[in-house]
């Protein structure tokens, strides 16, 4: 049965809240009281969803019902400034989470399926280690988008992350599979140590994009100030996949004015220190 639960934040907390329970799977089949009793962790103290949120169970939203994710697992609609709520959507496998506001760090980490739509900003480690599903952020995101936690060899291993605004450092660090697309600019070391997959940066990227990458593709639509010396120039060409990726990103609402589906790219191979099997594609002309 399709479930549509709406949680409206009354007052933002002063302390960080561990909100691992805020995934659609936790809400399916529960009544208002059960949902209100779901646990959260405020600092080191156990609290409940009802301590922070007004809970409403709504009729199925025909708009949400059209999405495959929502049909499978229901919709969780969160309203308010949730920038102190960490781990929202962590480990979700199905359904859809819509946030009208900002979310804290680790949103969508270890996600295996479903959709997380954030109509605001996101914190660090957005989609870290995710292996499936889709994350869309209308605003900006913090550092380590789709990256690996400390100690792990691989970060994100599947799914897609689409950020309309800017992102911080280490976007897609140790990415193994999947797509991270940033409409705006990003910080240092984008795609650091990437093993495979695709990282696309629409705006400016700061230093050392693709450092230590082993395989995979880094697409920079705005040429950076410098390419690392451990990348070797190959050629200029129009990649066959670009028109498809362009259309797919447009479908997610990520448009790049001035970059056409027939754009031409400079190709560089690297990082030579890691075998030189990865590639950086620099968009050469705007049309």
């Amino acid at each position, binding site marked *: 049965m399709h479930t549509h639960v709406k949680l409206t934040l009354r007052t933002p907390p002063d302390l960080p809240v561990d909100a691992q329970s805020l995934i659609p799977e936790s809400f399916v089949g529960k009544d208002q009281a059960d949902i209100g009793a779901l646990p959260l962790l405020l600092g080191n103290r156990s609290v409940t969803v009802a301590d922070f949120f007004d809970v409403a169970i709504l009729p199925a939203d025909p708009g949400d019902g059209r999405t495959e994710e929502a049909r499978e697992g229901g919709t969780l609609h969160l309203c308010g400034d949730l920038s102190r709520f960490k781990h929202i959507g962590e480990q979700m496998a199905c359904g859809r989470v819509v946030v009208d506001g900002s979310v804290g760090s680790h949103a969508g980490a270890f996600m295996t399926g479903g959709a997380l739509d954030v109509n605001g900003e996101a914190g660090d480690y957005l989609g870290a280690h995710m292996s499936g599903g889709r994350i869309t952020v209308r605003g900006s995101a913090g550092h380590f988008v789709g990256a690996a*936690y*400390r*100690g792990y*060899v691989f970060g994100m291993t599947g799914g897609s992350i689409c950020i309309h605004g800017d992102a911080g450092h280490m976007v897609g660090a140790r990415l193994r599979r999947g797509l991270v697309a940033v409409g705006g600019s990003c910080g240092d070391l984008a795609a650091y140590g990437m093993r495979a997959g695709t990282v696309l940066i629409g705006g400016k990227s700061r230093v050392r994009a693709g450092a230590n990458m082993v395989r995979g593709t880094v697409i920079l639509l705005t040429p950076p100030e410098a390419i690392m010396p451990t990348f070797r120039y190959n050629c200029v060409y129009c990649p066959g996949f670009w028109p498809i990726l362009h259309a797919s990103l447009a479908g997610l609402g990520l448009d790049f004015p001035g970059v056409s589906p027939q754009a031409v790219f400079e190709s560089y191979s690297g990082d030579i220190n890691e075998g030189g099997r990865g590639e950086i594609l620099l968009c050469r002309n705007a049309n």
Partner: protein
Amino acid sequence: MLRIVNGRVHDPSHGVGGEVRDIYIQDGRIVSGEGLDPAQARDMETLDAAGCAVLPGGVDIHSHIAGAKVNSGRIMCPEDHYGHVRAATDVTRPGCGLIVPSTYETGYLYSQLGYTTVFEAAVPPIEARHAHEELMDIPMLDTGCFAVMGNNYLVMKVLNDPDPVRRRERLRGLVPWLLRASRAFAVKVVNPGGVEDWKWNAGAADLDTPTPPFGVTPRQIVTGLAEAVDSLGLPHPMHLHCNHLGDPGNVETTLATMETLSGHRTHFTHLQYHAYGRTKKGGFTSGAARLAEYLDAHPEFTCDVGQIVFGNTLTMTSDAPMEFKLHKMRGAKWGNCDIEMEGGSGLVPVRYAPKVLVNAIQWAVGLELLLLIKNPWQVFLTTDHPNAGPFTAYPEIIRLLMDADYRRSWLEKLHPRVRRRTVLFDLDREYDLDEIAVITRAGTARRLGLSSKGHLGAGADADVAVYPILSDKAAMFSRPRFVLKQGELVVRDGQIVAERTGRTLCVAPEGYRQLPEDLAETFAGCYTVKLANYMVEDEYLRRPEVVPCG
């Protein structure tokens, strides 16, 4: 006083094999119940062990639980901590980790398996202060550490002396000085000469390869140290990690080392890693049968196994060249430390998989050693924690030893060629509880020279583990009904109910009080610390207990 009643006692040191007996405990020691007034016995605090096996507390002869490399492992593998978290309770502190657990967690996990004494197997003397600081933080266990000497500059300088009499005398003075400097319990030798050789060359030292800078050979190192350990009468013999760990065909080196040391008390550690034959194409086969045959004929030798456990783990050893080779082979994370004048160390995370032929052979070789060596007092259960796997896998290994059908059920999970390269699946032997008691506590305690541990006779430390007798031996040994440490109940039904601070076991053999002038000059010229800051002070030892030599 406290008594444990109705339990089936397995105390192989005293020939007690499953008889129902009562155990009496007073002031942290086991006492005789003879002549005790029945009324007095009835008034004692009583633990009912009906349906249970009563064993001495476990004694782990070789584990890596403290020191610089363990701490480096914790830093290097935070991923081990994310999934294994213990919240604080009224009794316990919080902790995390399974492969390289935090200090308190290490004590709790061991205690929850019924272990009460554990030895840290490799501590270079210069790192000993750090190791003791961590050992002080591990509750529930009596601990001690082995001082690494096989690549020590001072040792090699002394061994370079051409005069055999003076060489022996000086080594007999230097070894106790190093043991006292590190407040260690025994002499450990890791890849003798090989680590130093790696700093100058390829690091593949054979027994007769002269090792720079002094030109002594691994054979000279092991014989010199074995003689010194014997003449000092240290409670535990030389604890030897042979050359060429992990190489196909290394059984030849191991046998050659055994022949060299024939007649000297020696403990060969994680022998599984040194028991590989080689196929014509250079691949791995089992060499366990040859080693078992040799050990059967040489009662002066013992070994622990270093049994492989399938899954993720972290290798950490003073055998730095081996770790470098492993890193290059697997492309995994690598940590390395040059321990200046005393050797090296390295860390590489690995995953042992049953479908990988080499891993499957390693797994089979460990079990073969345990099953082929006839005398259980000569072979002990370890996983070389965490190198071959975490010590928490001991119950599973015990099940493999006690249940031949279960062991055979593993065949289909392994690489198909393992059947041709090993003899494991032709072995029908099943361990009984007495033999398990030997390889996990009685035998290890005896080999360590701990007269008050590993048995339940009067005067022994009241370290006792009581396990419910179940057909599933893994379940039986993973959740003891009771564990007593120094006479106090610390674990009930697998849960920690009290925290107890253990003791530090060390030795104090007679030797140099001060380094001779030439060695002190070498020390002053080469070490990064002053001699005055080298010795570990008493305050770094937790309730020290000096085990007598001789």
